[in-house]
């Protein structure tokens, strides 16, 4: 209940920041347009763009509420409700964004496996929200957090997909399922990707929750 109210109001808060929202929505578009002539490259870039946009937005939303959250805790909310609500809102918004871009690619490109393309875009959004939350938890200042996300996305983009470094990056699953979706490979790419996504999500969401549970912990003062 509390988590849903937090989620609804977080969404409303973001929706009022028109310019920032517009920039977040258009960010993946530039990624897509640069390699529009190549289906595989454009879809992969677009997916990474969605991940970057949603994680950065989550970073800012979580950081912006640092003053409010301790007071919500004092009023009686649990950390899971406060942080979970914000991640829920960002995940929901991210999924809508991803589905919008999927419609664009489905119309603009010749996709062999459109459902798998939808899956990677949605996965990118779903992973991005807790990733942004985790970075916000580790790096409380916005500039540091934004630079860290930039580094993660750059490494993800440039690393050799078969190498270890790429596998340690959060959006490797999107890349792996992307190969299944675009190059029509065997389904083991799909399963590996889903497993990677599940582990990544658990690490990011669990890490975010654990750090905030510690940071927003309240002592049990005895009654006088």
């Amino acid at each position, binding site marked *: 209940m509390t988590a849903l109210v*937090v989620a609804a109001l977080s969404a409303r808060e973001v929706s*009022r920041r028109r310019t920032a929202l517009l920039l977040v929505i258009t960010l993946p578009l530039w990624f897509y347009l640069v390699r529009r002539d190549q289906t595989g490259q454009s879809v992969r870039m677009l997916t990474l763009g969605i991940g970057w946009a949603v994680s950065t937005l989550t970073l800012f939303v979580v950081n912006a509420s640092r*003053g*409010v959250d301790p*007071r919500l805790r004092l009023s009686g909310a649990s950390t899971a409700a406060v942080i979970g609500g914000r991640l829920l809102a960002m995940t929901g918004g991210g999924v809508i964004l991803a589905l919008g871009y999927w419609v664009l690619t489905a119309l603009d490109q010749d996709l062999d496996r459109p459902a798998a393309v939808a899956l990677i875009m949605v996965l990118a959004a779903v992973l991005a929200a807790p990733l942004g939350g985790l970075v916000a938890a580790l790096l409380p200042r916005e500039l540091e957090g934004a630079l860290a996300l930039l580094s993660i996305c750059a490494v993800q983009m440039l690393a050799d997909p078969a190498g270890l470094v790429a596998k340690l990056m959060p959006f490797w699953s999107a890349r792996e399922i992307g190969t299944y979706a675009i190059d029509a490979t065997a389904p083991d790419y799909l399963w590996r990707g889903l497993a990677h996504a599940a582990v990544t999500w658990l690490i990011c969401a669990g890490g975010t929750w654990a750090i905030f549970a510690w940071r927003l912990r309240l002592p049990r*003062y005895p*009654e*006088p």
Partner: protein
Amino acid sequence: MTGWDSRFETELLRLGVQPGRARQLAEETAQQAAECAAAPDSLFGPAHLYARHLLSELKTAAVPLGGAKGPVRLRLTGVGKRYRRRTVLDGVNLTVRAGEVAAIVGANGCGKSTLLRICAGLTRPTSGSVQRTRRVGFVPQDAGTADWLTADEHFTLFGAAAGMAPRRARSTGEHLAARLAWRPTKSQPTQHLSGGTRQKLNLVLGELHAPDLLLLDEPYQGFDQGTYLDFWQQVHSWRDAGRAVVVVTHLLHDLQHVDHVHDLGAAQ
């Protein structure tokens, strides 16, 4: 039982009344309405507001007017705080009872705000012990609100944290705002409010869940003279309603309004 009675009982429970007593008060209130042959909401107003009103009326009696003292709401014993090698607070003792207002004064940088955060539980003391009532409201000096949300949305958000339904939280918030001579405008984000109005919002948010202990950190910044007086009147009505209040201040003429003054002295 009608909807009003059960809403009334639920609100009493939420405000910390024992279940048996809440049931008894709800039944008596229903019976009072029946003997007046009136609907409860026309006789007493909205259930959640009357629950607050009744409790504050009853608590007035719990704090005897002359001599005797109310129960302790906050007790600090030998509280100290060090950041690495810098000592911010050392050996602070403070006791605040129900129906009392305590002021914390001292030079800039002497740790007033740190002490208040320790009372709230947002900062941990490095030494000493804190005893505190469970229901506490904290009003920070600045921040503590979301720039892009309206006042009503803040009431909803903070109400949800305390387990209140959105509509009830909004009407309680508007009721408390009216006591500070403020009528929140719809659709105006907090960032467009003046500093004084934002502080009023901060105060209402600290009080929304009817805490027994209020911790206020220089809460009147940006208030004009009239609002400043409204603020102290509000503090006195909290005191008369049996709440304990701790105010951090640097204004000496505030001290005429309080029961205790705790001077933290010069900056450490």
